[in-house]
């Protein structure tokens, strides 16, 4: 039986339930050294000198590295290369790595690190978006404190706004979010023969790390090997940051000639690793008398922190998605990626979208409320259907399940009978319903087009087992399972016989990053290409074995070949086919190279086909609020998602449930706080609060499948989407219960009571 569309068990779960999976800290090498990092205590300062003498004299210490020890180029290769592996000239955020102490044991490294003296002259830091964009702001990045800017100009928004019947103008703010993957960042760098370097580590993008290691120690890429170890969660937090850690460890390993382990403690991980960008969103929406959007002017700012890392591309995605899934002919969006003296922000599930979705889905609710329209109806009125034109004037030509997600979620959540206007609520305990609708461009889009290709190799082994090597990684999201399902059906093998190996850059060419909900679609398609090359060879040998004369008379499904013409029950197992394949000396391997469908983007107007396809969802949240204390409980969240095709429905549900709870954390409890000098205050799980089972509402996933004709079996990709619209759904539910509009996340009892 074909396995696409079936909830087969995960490939990796067998080892994981036994504690056998090996995460980076579970590896050891003989002669290994341990590293720890000396960090900046200041948010902004001129670096005058680093005194390592006392640390070097401590027992067990092998080396103390600073920027002068970097053998290659002291710049992490991401977009702009403004971030050093180890601070040089300036300290730009509290927690920035200044030096690495390498010792025989972790404890010895730690003891010595306390003795490294950093001589720095404090400067006045810039600590928020508003400070950074103020007229007289001190300049910490170029002459405008801006890493990047984008514009989207569709039609003439200023004129259309003047003609609008109603105009709504609001401001929204969103906080940092920490990924809190349960396994912290970490790597082991192992020097090899002929000046080669291998790095083992927890990561999403082995080929980013590959670039970083080559650049940090100045060796050719063909001498670098990156092995992704079983990865304990990523969510974007292991996209850019492992490049920093791996580069540093490689510098240390090259210098000492011994393996170096650099695995973070939780406090370090939170203080140093990238976060979701805080956002400031200014929305101005004009509508006609029925609530149809006729003009939109949006200013979107994100706080990039001290270095640009991925800010330019995070900002691009947020800019494109800023209005949400709503038709409008006249749009002006301006966006700014701002520099501050805080931890650099990077990728986090949603990538610049959850901020604008909070704003957009809140304001549409405000519009519905003022115009006395059902919040669901205003979305039906304005939302995308096949044929709609997006903010970048792209025509949605297929695979648009937005309306069905609204209908299905509404039916399941019983919206019709349960939803009442806030004015009708009474009593000290009130319930409310809130909705959000979301669309999301799958893959890297026009902004990252040059990286949007993927490679796969597929080999049929002599015993009929199938070996697939892919450049995208498993990090818990289920890639190895879903891809094995696609490979099995495409080839005609059984699921059990297909193995998708963990990623090792020595085995596969650069497939681009494991981000942007692209893996199922991109790697899935490349496997289909490889399978399409191998399958005819299998049919060819099967034909002879079955005594047929034409290949097309043979069928191969789920590991068995049989004749289509002759239903005599004769069938041949994959294993025998494989043996014959080798006996015929037909090539048992194939390579799948897949390039994403085209996308485009005009630099000045932002117009074009921003992404090749979009995924959609509707969330409906139900809350209960105690009007005296402001305490609230999220009771239920119904989430209907159109991902094209659910290759593994139970995994899809797992992504929906997990993403939804992360979104609920973002909505109601998670935030990073800094003091007036820019010191991070809550870099621990005791103070950075995460949802536990006791906070968890009932999450009700609904699968909607509007197939995409270029997707593997119709699949689009959607791993990020479940998080993205949860915050506004809850904020809208809180408003519906209480009449109190929360425009600054997270939603807290004090804010509901109007005390904050």
């Amino acid at each position, binding site marked *: 039986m074909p396995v696409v569309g079936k909830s087969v068990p995960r490939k990796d779960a067998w080892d994981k339930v036994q504690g056998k999976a090996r995460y980076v800290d579970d590896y050891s090498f003989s002669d290994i050294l341990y590293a720890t990092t000396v960090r900046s205590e200041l948010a902004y300062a001129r670096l005058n000198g680093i005194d390592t003498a006392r640390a070097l004299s401590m027992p067990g210490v092998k080396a103390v590295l600073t920027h002068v020890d970097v053998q290659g180029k002291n710049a992490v290769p991401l977009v702009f290369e403004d971030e050093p592996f180890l601070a040089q000239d300036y300290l730009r955020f509290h927690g920035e790595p200044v030096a690495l102490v390498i010792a025989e044991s972790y404890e010895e490294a730690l003891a010595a690190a306390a003795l490294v003296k950093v001589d720095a002259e404090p400067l006045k830091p810039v600590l928020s978006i508003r400070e950074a964009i103020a007229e007289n702001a001190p300049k910490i990045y170029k002459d405008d404190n801006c890493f990047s800017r984008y514009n989207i100009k569709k039609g003439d928004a200023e004129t259309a706004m003047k003609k609008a019947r109603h105009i709504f103008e609001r401001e929204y703010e969103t906080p940092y979010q920490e990924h809190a993957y349960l396994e912290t960042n970490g790597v082991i760098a192992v020097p090899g023969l002929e000046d080669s370097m291998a790095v083992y580590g927890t990561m999403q993008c082995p080929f980013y790390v590959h670039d970083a290691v080559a650049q940090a120690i100045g060796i050719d890429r063909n001498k670098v090997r990156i092995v992704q170890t079983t990865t304990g969660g990523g969510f974007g937090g292991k996209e850019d940051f492992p490049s920093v850690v791996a580069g540093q460890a490689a510098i240390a390993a090259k210098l000492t000639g011994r393996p170096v382990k650099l695995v973070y403690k939780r406090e370090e991980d939170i203080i140093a690793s990238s976060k979701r960008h805080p956002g400031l969103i200014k929305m101005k929406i004009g509508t006609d008398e029925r609530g149809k959007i006729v003009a939109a002017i949006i200013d979107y700012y994100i706080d990039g922190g001290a270095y640009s890392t991925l800010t330019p591309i995070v900002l691009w995605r947020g800019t494109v998605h800023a209005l949400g899934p709503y038709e409008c002919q006249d749009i002006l969006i301006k966006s700014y990626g701002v520099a501050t003296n805080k931890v650099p922000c990077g990728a986090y599930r949603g990538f610049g979208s959850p901020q604008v979705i909070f704003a957009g889905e809140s304001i549409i609710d405000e519009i519905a409320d003022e115009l006395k329209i059902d919040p669901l109806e205003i979305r039906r009125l304005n939302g995308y259907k096949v044929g709609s034109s997006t903010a970048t004037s792209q025509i949605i030509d297929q695979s648009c399940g937005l309306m069905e997600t609204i209908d299905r979620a509404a039916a399941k959540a019983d919206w019709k009978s349960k939803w009442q206007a806030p004015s009708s609520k009474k009593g000290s305990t009130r319930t409310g319903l809130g909705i959000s609708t979301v669309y999301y461009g799958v893959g890297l889009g026009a902004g990252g087009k040059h990286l949007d290709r993927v490679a796969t190799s597929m080999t049929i082994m002599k015993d009929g087992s199938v070996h697939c090597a892919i450049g995208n990684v498993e990090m818990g999201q289920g890639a190895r399972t879903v891809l094995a399902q696609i490979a099995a059906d495409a080839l005609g093998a059984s699921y059990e016989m297909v193995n998708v190996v963990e990623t090792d850059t020595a085995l596969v060419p650069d497939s681009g990053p494991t981000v942007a909900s692209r893996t199922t679609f991109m790697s899935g398609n490349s496997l289909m290409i490889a399978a399409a090359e191998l399958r005819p060879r299998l049919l060819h040998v099967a034909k002879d074995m079955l005594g047929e004369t034409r290949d097309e008379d043979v069928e191969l499904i789920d590991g068995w070949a049989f004749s289509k013409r002759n239903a005599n029950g004769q069938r041949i197992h994959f294993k025998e086919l494989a043996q014959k394949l080798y006996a015929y000396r037909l090539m048992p391997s194939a390579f799948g190279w897949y390039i994403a469908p085209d996308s485009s983007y005009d630099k000045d107007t932002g117009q074009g086909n921003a992404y090749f396809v979009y995924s959609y969802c509707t969330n409906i949240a139900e809350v209960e609020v105690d009007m005296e204390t402001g305490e609230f409980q999220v009771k239920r969240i119904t989430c209907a998602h159109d991902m094209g095709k659910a290759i593994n429905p139970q995994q899809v549900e*797992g992504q929906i449930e997990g993403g939804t709870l992360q979104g609920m954390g973002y909505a109601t409890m998670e935030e990073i706080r800094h003091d007036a000098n820019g010191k991070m205050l809550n870099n621990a799980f005791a103070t950075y609060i995460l949802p536990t089972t006791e906070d968890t509402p009932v999450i009700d996933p609904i699968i909607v499948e509007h197939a995409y004709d270029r997707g593997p079996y119709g699949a689009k990709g959607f791993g990020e989407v479940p998080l993205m619209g949860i915050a506004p759904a809850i904020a809208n539910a809180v408003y519906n219960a209480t009449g109190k509009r929360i425009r600054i996340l997270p939603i807290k009892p004090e804010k509901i009571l109007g005390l904050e």
Partner: protein
Amino acid sequence: MKISLKVNGKKYTREVETNKNLLHFIREDLGLTGTKEGCGAGECGACTIIMNGKTVNSCLILAVEANGCEIETIEGEAKNGKLSKLQKAFHENHAVQCGFCTPGMILSARALLEKNAKPTVEQIKEAIEGNFCRCTGYQQIIEAVQDASGQLKKKEGLKRA
């Protein structure tokens, strides 16, 4: 200091520094790396083990405090290469994503089922409240524990294999 203890039914005697925590002792000195460190501060539950019948965060206990104790870790859960009911249920119900929380989660669930063979959803939630999972949203984990205790009604309307 010299300590003796039983881990998964096997007796170990080891010399250990007095300031080493039990988590590091189990992982480094005994080489049982199934028990994980997520925070080192008693917040996340990744390091959960069973000590004298009770679940504890092994990162909060000194190795020397475990002298004379009986300890169970994830490595002792499967017997003779056969997965336990809980492990099977986690495997079949997709209660595992990245897997980093899984060993601690399974031990917390196991301690619950030993006391209470048919726990309610509320009791399951309470038993694993100290175990963070950032991936799953807990629902499939709760379902796995229900399944292991013979109480899972498959959700209606969903396509399940």
